[in-house]
């Protein structure tokens, strides 16, 4: 599951949605792999302003990945900086969690990731 996805996932338990602690979910025992994906500069430049950059930085920190710039780079600064473009493409779209878990800091529930697929189905008692 691409790292970018973590910017859009919360705990699935209804009562957690109102808590800010349910986002982002925290990676636990995650194995990371890297896949090669043809870059799409248009997609990357347009996605960046839509991201929750603070949440992204939190995840990068938790996974011991290189520190991100303080704010999302503008399309202009991306166009000037090939290395930064490559790094962000690699981090967001090529880096994947293949195995591990995602933990809700509000209720503690853990969602498993197996073979790159995250499973958010809840046991009956949590629905």
């Amino acid at each position: 599951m691409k790292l970018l996805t973590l910017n859009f996932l919360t705990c699935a338990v209804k009562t957690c949605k109102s808590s800010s602690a349910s986002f982002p979910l925290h990676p636990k025992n995650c194995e990371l792999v890297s896949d090669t994906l043809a870059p799409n500069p248009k997609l990357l430049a347009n996605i960046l302003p839509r991201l929750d950059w603070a949440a992204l930085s939190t995840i990068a920190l938790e996974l011991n990945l290189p520190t991100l710039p303080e704010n999302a780079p503008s399309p202009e600064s991306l166009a000037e900086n090939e290395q930064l473009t490559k790094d962000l493409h690699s981090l967001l779209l090529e880096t994947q969690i293949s195995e591990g878990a995602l933990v809700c800091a509000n209720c503690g529930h853990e969602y498993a990731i197996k073979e790159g697929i995250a499973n958010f189905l809840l046991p009956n008692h949590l629905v």
Partner: protein
Amino acid sequence: MASSEDVHPTKYEEQHVHEVYQQIASHFSSTRYKPWPIVESFLQSLPPGSIGLDIGCGNGKYFTVNRDIFIIGSDRSTNLVKIAATHEPHVAVVADNLALPHQAGRFEFAISIAVVHHLSTLERRRAAVSCILECLSQGGKALIYVWALEQKGSRRGWDEGHEQDVMVPWVMKTGKNNPHPDGTTEKTFQRYYHLYRSGELEEDIRFMGGEVMEAGYEKDNWWVICKRKAKGDASGG
């Protein structure tokens, strides 16, 4: 109500929707590849960088339409999600459409194509609509497609006046060289569907606080494009 026995809806759907799709996943996927025109134009009209959801994404059939947007798909079937996840650059997770793992108000678009009709009670179908609307940002829009009751031109030939809760067979052939233990070479699965009357989906959307922007009929389905009602909008909608 779909079932005449006293079976809880989730158990009913487990048997007549989820287990079926898990078993037929790769066969089903091989027959689902051509995007429907209105879904295609909806996705292609989105500005580059748009981020949204495909709720009940199945095999990721719609992931191939626009590579300049980012879609987070979800489906109840692990086997279908595994296929969907191969369509770059989009992603897919296993989730239930009544308990989605996404932030409220975050997404510019959502599609839910031929999904909500698998929920076996009115309450659950409306809840699914509500979950879709809840994910949308203030200006965001959702495209929902459901099977129509009125499809007398199709091979199933249902029309006004027919029972709306039906079981639709899916026949999976194993091939002459690969028979089942009892010698048969095909297996039939029954899938539950609620067939929507004209106007019914719009009613459900409005009931759950959504606003209908456009609606129509395509390939035996009713479709609606809807959004969340603007805050402070007290109109009937």
